[in-house]
C-alpha cells in the first residue's frame, strides 16, 4: 500500500513547501501557516493507510489541509478572523521598497477577498491546479469552483487598480522577477 511505503514520507517531505505557500496565502501568517502544514502532515501520517492512489496524492494532501484549516475556523468561531499581515521576516530586512509596496498591496487585496474565493483562486493561481482538482480539495461542485474563481478575479481586478496605475512600481517588480 502506497501510504505505508517510504515513498509516502518522501512525497510529504518534497511537497511541504507547496503546502506552506498556499497555507500562507490562506492565513497571511507565517506561524499559523507553519502550524497548518505541521497539522496536515501529522494527520496524513496518522491516516496513511487511507492513501492508496498515488496519482491523487497531491489533491489529498491539499484536501487534508483544507479540512485542517476549516477545523481551525470552527475552533476559532467565537474569535475575530485573523487579519494580521506579516510582511516581515528575519531574512528580508532590506527587501526593496517598491517590491514590498507591491507585495503589500497585492497581499492586502488578496486578504480582503472572501475566504472561499481566496482558497479557490490560490489553488488555481499559486498551485496551478485544475478546476476539477480544486473541486475535490475543497469538496465543492466544479461549477462552484468556476464561479468562485471568476468572482475572486473580478473582485481582485477592482482592488488592484492602484497597482496598475504606478508604472514605475511595475517596472521595479519585473526587474526583480
Amino acid at each position: 500500500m502506497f501510504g505505508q511505503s517510504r515513498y509516502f514520507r518522501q512525497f510529504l517531505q518534497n511537497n511541504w513547501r507547496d503546502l506552506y505557500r498556499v497555507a500562507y496565502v490562506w492565513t497571511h501568517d507565517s506561524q499559523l501557516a507553519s502550524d497548518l502544514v505541521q497539522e496536515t502532515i501529522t494527520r496524513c501520517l496518522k491516516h496513511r493507510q487511507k492513501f492508496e492512489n498515488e496519482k491523487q496524492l497531491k489533491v489529498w494532501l491539499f484536501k487534508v489541509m483544507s479540512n485542517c484549516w476549516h477545523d481551525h475556523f470552527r475552533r476559532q468561531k467565537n474569535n475575530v478572523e485573523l487579519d494580521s499581515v506579516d510582511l516581515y521576516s528575519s531574512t528580508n530586512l532590506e527587501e526593496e521598497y517598491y517590491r514590498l509596496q507591491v507585495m503589500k498591496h497585492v497581499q492586502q487585496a488578496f486578504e480582503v477577498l472572501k475566504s472561499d474565493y481566496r482558497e479557490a483562486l490560490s489553488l488555481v493561481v499559486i498551485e496551478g491546479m485544475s478546476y476539477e482538482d480544486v473541486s475535490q480539495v475543497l469538496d465543492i461542485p466544479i461549477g462552484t469552483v468556476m464561479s468562485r474563481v471568476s468572482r475572486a478575479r473580478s473582485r481582485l481586478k477592482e482592488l488592484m487598480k492602484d497597482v496598475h496605475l504606478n508604472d514605475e512600481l511595475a517596472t521595479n517588480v519585473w526587474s526583480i522577477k
Partner: protein
Amino acid sequence: MSKENTVSFEELNYFIDGQLTRSERAKILDALKKDDVLSKSMCELQRNNEFVQLSYSHIPEPDQNPYLTATKRSGRQLFAIAASLLILLSSTISWQLQSYLMNNQQPNIMELSQLGDALPKSNKVLIHVSEMDDKRIKKALDTTEELLTNNKQVRVEIIANTSGLSLLRKNSPYAARISSLSNQYSNVKFKACGIAMQAAKLKEGKEINLLPEAEKVPAALDEILHHLKENWAYFKA
C-alpha cells in the same frame, strides 16, 4: 467587449486557467485578435495573475521545517516546547527590530556595495550573513579583509544566522580564511546566532559545533538591534 465576440469574463478565466478544449481555445484566440477591449481585459487578468504569483513567491520562511517538526512531534514534547519558546523569542526580537527600523529611518542600513560611501563616517561595521551563498560570503570576507588592512581603527563584526550559520560551523568551507583573519587582526569578531544554532540542533538532532574563532550570541537580531542603537553601520552580505 464587442457584441459580435460574445466571450464572457468567465470564459476568459477558463481560458487563462487552461480549462478549455482546443476548439474552445481557438475560438477565444480568434475573438482576442478581433476585439481590442477583450484583449485588454485578458492582459489585465494575466497581469493580475502574475502580480499574485510574484507577491507570494517570497513569503517568510517558517521558523522550522514543518515536515520535520510533524514527524518528530510524537514523543518529543520537550523539544516542541523549546521550539515554541524560540519562535516566540525570535518573533519578539524581530518585532523590536522592525519597530526600531521603522522609527529610526534606517540610517545605517546599506548594501555591501555602498560600503565605500559609508566608511569614512563609521569605524564600526556589522556584516550580516543570513545565506550560505558563496559569492556573497566571499564578498563579505574580502570586504572585511580590505577594511581591516586599510583602517587600523575599524572594528568589524560578522554575524551569521539562519542558513548563513554554516559559515561559522566547524565544518565551514571558510574555516581557514576565518582563522587567518582572526589570527591576523584583533579587531574582527565572528558571531553565531544562538537561535539558529538551536533550530539546527532540533533539525539535525545533534549538537552544533562552531569554529574556535566564532562566539555564540543569544540571538542575531537582538545583536543587530543593539549595534544599530550604538550607531554601527549595518551591511547585509
